[in-house]
C-alpha cells in the first residue's frame, strides 16, 4: 500500500510540474494577452486597465497559484474565440476522443497478444516471417496516410462507412461507434505492429531463461511453458509499453480526427492553436498530460501488482 501512496505522491508532483511548465510557457512567450485582445492600436491606458482587470499586474507566482486553484476546481477560464467557458467547450468533445482511444486499446490487446504468442511459438515459420514483414511496413506508414488509405479502401471502395459522415453520440450511439471504428483502426494499426514485435521478442528472450528450462524439466509441453511460465514474465515490459503507447495514441487521435473529420478534442486543439486561443490550448494540454500521467501511474501500480519483486521492494522501504 505504501508503494501506491508513494506513486500517487510522485504523480501529483509531476502533474504540478507539468502545469507549471505549461503556465510558464504560455505566459512568458506569447507576449501581452491584453494587447492580443485589444489589438496594437489600443491606447496604453486601455491596455493598462485591461491588464489590471485581467490580473496581469500581479506577481507571476500569485497568478500561477490562482490559475492552478481555479483549474483544480474545474474552471478553465473563458475561450477568447468562442466566447464561452473552456469547460463547456470541451465537455461534449471528451466522450468522442475517449471512445476512440478505448476502442484502439481494445483492438491492440485483442489482436496483438494472440499474434505475438503465435509468432513466438512458431518462430522462423513462413507466417512468422510474413507477419514480421507486414509489421515493418505498417510501422513505416505515416499515421494520417494510413487513415487516408483506410478511407479509400473501406469508405470509397467497400462503402463500409461514409467518409466525413460523422454521427454524434447524442443522436445515434451505434452509428457513432460504427463511424469511430475505422479511425480507431488507423490509430491502433502501428501500435499493434509494435506490440506484436515486442511481445514476440520478449517471449523468445524469456523462453531462453533458466526458469523456462526448469519448467521443461518437470514435463511441461511447449505450450505449458509458454502460457503458464513465460507469458506472465514477458507481459511486464508489454504493460509498460502499452502505457507509453497510450501517450502516442492521444497524439495519433489528434491527427486521425483531422483525417476523418471528427469533432473531438484534437480538432478543438488545432483550431485554437491557429486562432491563438491560449486558454483552450492550455486547458487541453494540461488535461491530456494529466490523463497520460494518471494512466502511466496506474500502469506502474498494475506492474508492481503483477511483479512480486517490485511489490516487496515497495513495502520494505
Amino acid at each position, binding site marked *: 500500500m505504501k508503494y501506491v501512496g*508513494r506513486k500517487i*505522491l*510522485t504523480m501529483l508532483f509531476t502533474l504540478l510540474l507539468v502545469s507549471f511548465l505549461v503556465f510558464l510557457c504560455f505566459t512568458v512567450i506569447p507576449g501581452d494577452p491584453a494587447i492580443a485582445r485589444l489589438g496594437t492600436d489600443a491606447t496604453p491606458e486601455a491596455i493598462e486597465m485591461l491588464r489590471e482587470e485581467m490580473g496581469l499586474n500581479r506577481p507571476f507566482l500569485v497568478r500561477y497559484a490562482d490559475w492552478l486553484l481555479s483549474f483544480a476546481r474545474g474552471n478553465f477560464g473563458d475561450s477568447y474565440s468562442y466566447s464561452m467557458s473552456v469547460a463547456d467547450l470541451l465537455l461534449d468533445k471528451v466522450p468522442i476522443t475517449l471512445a476512440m482511444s478505448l476502442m484502439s486499446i481494445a483492438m491492440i490487446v485483442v489482436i496483438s497478444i494472440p499474434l505475438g504468442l503465435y509468432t513466438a511459438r512458431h518462430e522462423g515459420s513462413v507466417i512468422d516471417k510474413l507477419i514480421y514483414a507486414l509489421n515493418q511496413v505498417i510501422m513505416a506508414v505515416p499515421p494520417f496516410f494510413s487513415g487516408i488509405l483506410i478511407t479509400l479502401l473501406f469508405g470509397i471502395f467497400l462503402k463500409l462507412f461514409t467518409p466525413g459522415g460523422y454521427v454524434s453520440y447524442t443522436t445515434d450511439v451505434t452509428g457513432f461507434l460504427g463511424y469511430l471504428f475505422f479511425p480507431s483502426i488507423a490509430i491502433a494499426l502501428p501500435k499493434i505492429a509494435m506490440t506484436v514485435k515486442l511481445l514476440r521478442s520478449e517471449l523468445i528472450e524469456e523462453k531462453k*531463461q*533458466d*526458469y523456462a*528450462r*526448469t*519448467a*521443461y*524439466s*518437470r*514435463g*511441461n*509441453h511447449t505450450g*505449458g511453458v509458454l502460457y503458464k*511460465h513465460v507469458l*506472465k*514474465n514477458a507481459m*511486464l515490459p508489454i504493460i509498460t509499453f502499452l502505457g507509453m503507447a497510450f501517450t502516442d495514441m492521444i497524439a495519433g487521435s489528434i491527427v486521425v480526427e483531422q483525417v476523418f473529420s471528427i469533432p473531438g478534442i484534437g480538432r478543438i486543439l488545432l483550431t485554437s492553436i491557429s486562432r491563438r486561443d491560449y486558454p483552450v490550448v492550455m486547458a487541453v494540454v494540461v488535461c491530456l498530460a494529466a490523463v497520460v500521467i494518471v494512466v502511466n501511474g496506474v500502469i506502474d501500480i498494475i506492474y508492481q501488482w*503483477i*511483479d*512480486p*519483486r517490485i511489490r*516487496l*521492494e515497495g513495502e520494505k*522501504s
Partner: protein
Amino acid sequence: MQMLEVQDLNIEFHDHSMPETVVYDFSLSMAEGDIVGIVGESGSGKTMSALALCGLLSRHDMTRRGRILFQGKELLTCSRQDMRQLQGREISIIFQEPMTSLNPVKTIGWQVEEALRLHTRMTRKERYEKAIWALREAELPEPERVYGQYPHELSGGMRQRVMIAAAIVCQPRILIADEPTTALDVTIQDQIIRLLQKLNKEFGTAILFISHDLSLVRRLCHRVVVMQNGQIVEQGDTEKIFRNPTQDYTKRLIAAIPSCDKEKTEWNQIGTVVLKVEDLHASYEDAGNGIFRHGKEKEVLKGISFRLRQGEILGLVGESGCGKSTLAKSIVGLKRDYQGRIVGAEGRIRMVFQDPYSSLNPSRTIDWILEEPLKLSGVSKSERREKVREMLRRVGLETGIADRYPRQLSGGQRQRVCIALALMSEPAVLVADEPVSALDVTIQAQILKLLARLREEMGLAILFISHDLRVVYEICDRVLILQNGQIVEQGLPQTLYRHAAHAYTKQLLKASGVVEVNI
C-alpha cells in the same frame, strides 16, 4: 539390468554451418541408489550429457547418436509425449543457478506443486500436503510460510532447497544435479551435499552429480567419470581414481587441487608495513535514492584492523555478506564514507576483480586498456608500447594479443590481462578480490603461480580475498577470518588450519572438507 544405461552417446550441434561435436561416445551405467559424479572443466561436455539424459536438448539444432536406456526404455528415440511422462516424475534435474532457475513471478508452492499437477490426479489439498512434505524433506524452515513466498524473498541456499523440493516431489528414481552448489557459500554447499546424501539414503534416489569441484565429488560420489573436451578420459571408483589416477589429464586435475596437507615455509615478518588499516567501520545504504525513499543504513564493517607488509600475501576469508567486498572497496578508494584509518600506499593500490569478463572494457583493445594508466601519467607513445609489451611478457602472455579485444581472449588470458593492468602503474599493494573463483582448476593453479611469482619479482604486497580455504592455504602467508564485519581469528595458515580456536573457523574448515581430509 541397470536402471540407466548410456551407450556411445554423441551430441552434435548444427547451430552454425559446420557441425560441431560436443560429446563423443559417452557411456555410463547407473543402478538404483548410485551416486555418480561427472567432473571436468568448462567445455568438457559434462552439462550437455546431463541435459541429453533428461531430454532437455532442443531436437532442432542438434543430432544425438547412441542409446540412452532408462529402465529398459529408449529415451533418444521415444516421442516427446513419452519423454514428458518421465520428466519430473522419474527423472529430475536441479541447476547451478538457483537465482534464475525459479520463475520469479510464481509462488514457491505453485512451482513445487507443478510436477504433481502434470503427473498426478491429486486434489488441491493432497498437492498442498505433498508440497509441504517435499519442502520439509528439503529441510526448509517453516515450509508453510515458504509455500506462499516468491523466489526473491529467499536466500540462494534456500532457493536451491526449493529446487530440490520441486525435483523430489514425485520421488523420482534419478536426480541429476548440475553444479548445484557452485553459486553457494561453503557452509551452505556443505549442507546441500549432506541433504543430497540424506535423500539418497532415505529414498534410494540415484544421483548424477556434475561438478568442476573435485573435492566435493570425492566426498559425495561412489563413482566418478572424468571428462575432457567432450570425451570420457577415465571412470571408476572414486577413491581408486583419486589415489591412483591412470590418465595424464586426471593426474593434472588432481594435482591442481590446492592441497592443505603440505608444509609451508614460515613467513618471516620483516618487510616494511605498506598498508595499515585501523579500526575501520563502514556501513551500507541499500537502495535508498529518491525524494520519497530512504535507505536503511546497515553496518557491514565493525572495527577492522590489520597490517600488510611488503612482499606479503595476506588472505582474507569469509562468506558472502561478511563485508569483504566493502573492505576491498574502502581500501582501493571506491568507497570513501568510512570511519577509521587506512594509511599507506596512497594512490599505489590497484585491484583485480573476480569476473575477468566484466573487468575489461569490451569496446577497447588490450593495447588501449593497458596503456591507459600510462597515458594518464603522460608517458610518450613509443615508451607506452614498449612497457605494455614488457608487461604482457611478464604475466605470461604473447605480445601478439595486444591488438585484440577482450572477448577474443579466454578467461585465463583475461585474468592475466587484468593483473597486467593492475601492475602497469607499479603499485605497492594489490587487492585481489576472488581472482581465481571464476576460473577452471588448471587455470586457477596457473594464475596462483603467476601471483606468487610476481610477488617474488616485484616485492608486491597482496591482499588476497577468497572464500576458498584451500586456495588461501596454497598462496597466503597469513590469513584473516572475517565474519559479519569482524575479524574473528587470524594467524599463519599452517597453524590456523590445524589448531583453529574460533567456532566459525572450525565450521568453515569442516564445511570445505579441509579438516576431515587432514585428520
